[in-house]
């Protein structure tokens, strides 16, 4: 593995060069929080950002995405035909994404890229993107990545991992896509003994993580027992069934398809949906198999922490970014719920964690 040394003085000029070959996207602060935005005209990503308030999943999987357009105007030859919507899939690079959010894309991919079905919208957007990650030197107090199969310098899903070494960045080149980006930026200086330095920085950052989830029992716990656990009443009581947790989550992937017609033309689009909403599971008959908030809250946690674990054997469907913990209006904390589930004993519900 190659590591490149990027002097900070070369950062802005390098990005300017890279911008000729890539559409650049990075964390930008607007009003009181950061979000990922296109970096126009030499704007720099704000690498002081601890993390963006909402996850960057929308870069690949927009909240509302037009798939097809159509016309109902029968004087047109192509009326009532779905036409693929035009998308810009030219190369782009997300600069300054955190390792947790990059790994999250690899989990979401499990849903959008299967042997049977490939979602072309998600895949084209993902494949056109190069992910330049930034290791976390100061993880937030609600971050629990190290126990959620991730870490502050985790490399999965990244093309380049940057480590901030004071007056320079050490850039670990993880894929060919990453190498191409660094070439385009003109950063070529090989770093010496960088592996050790980055490994030490990673260890130091991991040591700063203070919150954890326990997941080791989740796989072996019987589904039905966990589903029937009495703690769901207590867990779900405070929930107001808004979509904040699912919409801010980098790994939640559920969507709904809608046609919207105005006059004689329309679009078929994909919109984020949320298991927190009653409409999510409402049948055409009027029956709703998840008719209460207890059903819906349980579904969210069971999907992330049990069904996903069972189905994919890739750990939990969570990277420990802590967004839902920080943003839940009523302080429902996935760390607490995960530990309750993991500590569940069918007989006496001996969940020690309160």
């Amino acid at each position, binding site marked *: 593995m190659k590591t490149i040394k990027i002097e900070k003085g070369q950062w802005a000029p390098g990005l300017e060069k890279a911008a000729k070959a890539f559409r650049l996207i990075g964390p930008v602060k607007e009003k009181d929080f950061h979000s990922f935005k296109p970096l126009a005209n030499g704007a720099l990503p704000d690498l002081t950002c601890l993390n963006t308030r*909402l996850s960057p999943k929308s870069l690949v999987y927009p909240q509302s995405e037009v798939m097809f357009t159509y016309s109902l105007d029968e004087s047109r030859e192509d009326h009532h035909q779905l036409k693929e919507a035009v998308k810009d899939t030219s190369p782009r690079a997300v600069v300054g994404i955190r390792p947790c959010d990059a790994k999250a894309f690899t989990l979401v991919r499990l849903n959008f890229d299967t042997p049977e079905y490939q979602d072309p919208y998600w895949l084209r957007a993902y494949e056109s993107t190069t992910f330049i990650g930034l290791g976390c030197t100061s993880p937030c*107090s609600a971050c629990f990545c190290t126990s959620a199969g991730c870490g502050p310098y985790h490399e999965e899903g990244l093309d380049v991992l940057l480590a901030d070494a004071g007056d320079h960045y050490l850039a670990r080149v993880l894929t060919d896509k990453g190498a191409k980006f660094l070439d385009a930026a003109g950063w070529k200086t090989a770093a010496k003994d960088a592996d050790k330095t980055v490994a030490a920085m990673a260890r130091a950052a991991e040591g700063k993580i203070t919150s954890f989830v326990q997941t080791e029992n989740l796989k072996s716990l019987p589904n039905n027992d966990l589903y029937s656990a009495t703690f769901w009443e207590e867990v779900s009581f405070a929930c107001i069934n808004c*979509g904040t947790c699912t919409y801010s989550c980098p790994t939640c992937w559920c969507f709904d398809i809608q046609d919207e017609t105005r006059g004689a033309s329309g679009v078929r689009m994909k919109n984020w949906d949320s298991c927190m909403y*009653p409409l999510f599971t409402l049948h055409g008959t009027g029956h709703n198999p998840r008719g209460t908030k207890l059903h819906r809250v349980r579904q969210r946690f069971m999907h992330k922490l049990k069904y996903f674990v069972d189905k994919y054997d890739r750990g939990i469907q969570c990277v420990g970014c802590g967004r839902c913990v920080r943003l839940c209006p*009523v302080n429902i*904390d996935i760390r607490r719920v995960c530990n309750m589930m993991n500590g569940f004993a069918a007989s006496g519900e001996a969940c020690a964690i309160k």
Partner: protein
Amino acid sequence: MLSYTEKIREIAGRLLASGAVEMVVGFRQGTIPMMNEPHFAKTPAEAAALVWDSHCGINLANYLTDRKEKIGIVAKGCDSRNIVTHIIENKIKREQLVVIGVPCQGMVDKRRIAMKCPGEITEVTEDETGLTAKGNGFSQRFEKKEVLQHNCSLCIHRNPVIHDEMAAPPVEEQTGVDRYADVRAVDAMGPEQRWKYFEDLLAPCVRCYACRNACPLCYCPTCFVDESRPQWVGKSQDPSDVRTFHFLRAYHCAGRCTDCGACERACPVGINMRVFTKKLEKDCLDLFGWEAGLSLEVRPPLDVYRPNDPNDFIK
């Protein structure tokens, strides 16, 4: 105010032990700074988990909707007004409730505190007059009145309007408060400027509906945005649909909103949607002399008909 916790626990424990109520709804200590979680206690032992501090901003009336049990509920001024509204709208019966009134001194705005600190806040402690926020390499003290939620700084009904028990003697109400300066500022804008203001205000909305769901007034079995047969409102991020949601939500709260601030507090992207509901609140005050949730005896102006109504259009 820090003594409230002990008193709330004592009352809750007593109500549960005597069987006067089946559950007590209050707050328990949150898992992150400046957040508490709405929580129920069903046994006297569980009542020991109840807490009170300046982070109890969620409106607990929201947790009463259509419940059948006998419930003890911890209620600050605005919660009590929404409990009144719930009772007159038949969402809960007065006889089901034992209201544990909490004279409120305002809730703090965690985002304002966070923005005034140089780094991430890892611990917040509170004393009688203020709060101290600590994080990596800093410790900063705030007078409570500097960091109140905006609605709390304008509140003139801090004491519960109905109660069966009280966690403390009443607090002095704020007087001389200019409650509608922000509404007047929006009123004073020209149409274009106002349109731009609303456009900017709603631009970050992700339609998570946290504002709607945190609101005790929003209890329709199916909200108009969730109607699917027929579907009234589009599901996308189209600005006209986003606006439709916000404007209609606000109108549904006319004459009912107590400006408890739960909506603004819940919003993950910091939208102050209270500018809509406050305009309607002000209209109800100006046109009908009405403030929501103050009395169990008087019907709200928008659900009564009076033969002597001064407006001609209704005759």
